């Protein structure tokens, strides 16, 4: 009986901790439905007394639909680039004897720790020479460098765990290494590939610096850049800003809920390796 009480207590305490920790998100959503005067009220109200939905209408008139589309496009294409490059690379590093393998792995590890600001100026000049400033290409090319090292390192660990006999059997049946990889290994690795894809998607979804630096044209801006711009524009209209933030966070929340267990596991192994 006493043990059960303790378990109850721990569960409740746990829920309380998580609520306090995630309070900023709760506050974001609540504020987006409050009126301007209610936001400034002391003591604060924890749920809107006077629900209003105008802030969502307000931001719809702003560029948010275009921003959303841009975020989606940039993040999806970046994820595609990341997976196309990192899946085979991780497989190669896991399966073949390659000279300089250690060096390659080290290269990926080190790049994971580089700040974006370090490559920002040279990339800006390089992209200027290539004539791809003010296009989707700039942020996509740059953001892929965030997802590739992460994905290569995670997927390599995964491929190392797949028994080699599976591919050997395929080869005896007449598969070449490429088709053995595509037909046998890839389907097995799909859950891990999805995690890497999701993480690359999140990395890119959260990018602000590459987009506002490479693209002066607001037509090309993702949600993060749109929000940054809106801070100046809306000033203290926090309900509109919070509505903007809620819309921007929504896809991340949805993907996170769908993939929660796998993602947490993947993040744990990827952050350390």
């Amino acid at each position: 009986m006493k043990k059960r009480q303790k378990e109850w207590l721990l569960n409740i305490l746990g829920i309380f901790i998580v609520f306090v920790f995630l309070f900023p998100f709760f506050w974001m959503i609540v504020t987006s439905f409050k009126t301007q005067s209610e936001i400034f009220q002391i003591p604060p109200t924890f749920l809107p007394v006077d629900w209003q939905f105008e802030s969502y209408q307000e931001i719809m008139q702003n560029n948010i639909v275009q921003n959303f589309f841009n975020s989606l496009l940039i993040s999806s294409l970046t994820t595609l680039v990341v997976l196309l490059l990192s899946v085979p690379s991780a497989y190669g590093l896991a399966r073949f004897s390659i000279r300089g393998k250690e060096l390659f792995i080290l290269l990926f590890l080190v790049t994971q720790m580089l700040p974006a600001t370090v490559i920002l100026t040279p990339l800006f000049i390089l992209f200027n020479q290539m004539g791809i400033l003010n296009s989707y290409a700039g942020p996509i090319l740059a953001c892929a460098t965030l997802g590739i090292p992460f994905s290569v390192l995670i997927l390599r660990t995964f491929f190392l765990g797949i028994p080699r006999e599976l591919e050997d059997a395929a080869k005896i049946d007449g598969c070449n290494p490429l088709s053995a990889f595509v037909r046998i290994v890839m389907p097995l690795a799909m859950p891990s590939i999805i995690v890497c894809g999701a993480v690359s998607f999140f990395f890119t979804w959260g990018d602000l610096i590459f987009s506002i630096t490479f693209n002066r044209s607001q037509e090309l801006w993702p949600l993060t850049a749109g929000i940054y711009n809106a801070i100046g524009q809306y000033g203290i209209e926090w309900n509109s800003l919070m509505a903007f933030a809620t819309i921007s966070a929504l896809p991340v929340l949805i993907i996170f809920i769908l993939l929660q267990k796998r993602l947490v596991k993947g993040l744990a192994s990827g952050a350390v390796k």
Partner: protein
Amino acid sequence: MLKKLASKWEGYMFVIPAVIYMLALIGYPLIYNIILSFQDIDLQALNTGDGSFLGFSNYIDLIHDSVFWISVKNTLLYTVGSVVFQFIIGFLLALFFSMKFRLASFLRGIMMVSWLIPLTISALLFRFMMGSEEGIFNQMLLSIGIINDPLPWLTSPDMALWSIVLANIWVGIPFNMLLLSTGLSNLPEDIYESASLDGASVIQKFFHITVPLLRPVILIVMMLGFIYTFKVFDLVFVMTGGGPVNSTEVLSTLSYRYSFDDFNFSMGAATANILFVILFVISLIYLRMIKKDEVM
């Protein structure tokens, strides 16, 4: 013959595309950054394509720039403050969620969401909550009566840096907690059982068993925390933009300002290089550490 050659190279065919990509978009810019920092490239030189060679004069200018030293100091204070507290809180939470109750792993997992949300949004949320009149922090403190006047969270030069540290601690906690939880779950249980038989208290067990056994993981978490915090940009950029009066300027925002507010690309590159060298040295130490310990 051709087949043999192909099979010798097939491994490289898989690996090389990603390596070339990274060399082109990270390796080349790093080298170009060094060249840039010795030149004099502004907006005009960018279009004509020629900048004169200056030698070390950008670096010398930087050393004589008081804002540069302020941002070095801020970056260090910021990093150390964030790493220490996010580690302590992350550790406490990891210990809490390592107790066996039904919702433990589910709740711990949910907390990770704050790590995946765009930093721009987290920064905006804290900027809002720290607002002097509209912010919940002041509203709560005022209604309880702890303070009589609103605190200038982000508007006072003395307070702004610590307010951003607070936001960064929040961002960093789940990451610390997750890694420490993984470490805790790998600890052998029988040691704890025999320690209990010997009459060890919870606190004794923590300091004499948990901490020593977890040492490699603790070091890694601290190092990674340092690396990820040292390069922070978005949080500062969105919360204060380096102000008020440079009180929250860090190396990354300073570099950005040189390059894209003043269009002095060479000074921006020089600042970024200093940031890079510091991070590179720390990364090397970290890599040696994980190689030696071979943890995880």
